[in-house]
């Protein structure tokens, strides 16, 4: 069964450093998402991406965040200058169509900011 993949599985970084989290969505999916989950809390929406542009973003997704689809397969989340509170699990998800289709989550990247 096709699946969403994410790399790395765990990233440790110093406060103020830039990180790039990578995702490969399911190949025939058109809608891509990033979510964040702080330990013990709910899954929070960050951003959605369709047709090579951001379609919606939450208030969490401020200027330090950016997303890109540099080629036909990868979907990246960049955090420009990490803060301690950015420590969380970051999940990528993809979907063929919104509204009716299943949204599949990747295994996540655990980001630890020291």
């Amino acid at each position, binding site marked *: 069964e096709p699946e969403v993949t994410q790399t790395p599985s765990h990233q440790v970084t110093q406060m103020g450093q830039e990180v790039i989290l990578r995702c490969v969505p399911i190949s025939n999916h058109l809608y891509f998402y990033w979510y964040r989950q702080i330990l013990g809390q*709910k899954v929070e929406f960050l951003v959605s991406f369709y047709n090579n542009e951001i379609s919606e973003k939450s208030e969490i997704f401020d200027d330090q965040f950016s997303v890109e689809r540099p080629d036909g397969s990868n979907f990246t989340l960049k955090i420009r200058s990490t803060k301690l509170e950015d420590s969380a699990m970051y999940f990528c998800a993809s979907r063929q169509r919104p509204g009716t289709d299943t949204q599949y*989550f990747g295994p996540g990247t655990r980001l630890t900011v020291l």
Partner: protein
Amino acid sequence: QQPVQSPQAVILREGEDAVINCSSSKALYSVHWYRQKHGEAPVFLMILLKGGEQKGHEKISASFNEKKQQSSLYLTASQLSYSGTYFCGTERTGGSYIPTFGRGTSLIVHP
């Protein structure tokens, strides 16, 4: 606006049944149910679309009452493997069709 889940936690013995509820203050287009085990990604269980449908997946089923803006997940004859946190994700009618997740219900099944 996030959906409200209840109860926050359920502790069961193997073979017992449980019901987890998810309600919204907004009109819903669909409800997604996921199970997440500690340190892992949410795993999709089922999606229910408006129209008041019910769905089943092994011994796990769900209903969606569009008029009441709520969904319920039914776990029957629970197994140890059912332990985890169950999240509902709702998509609003006329919204952006991006699931908003509840805080989750922790389910623990004991032998």
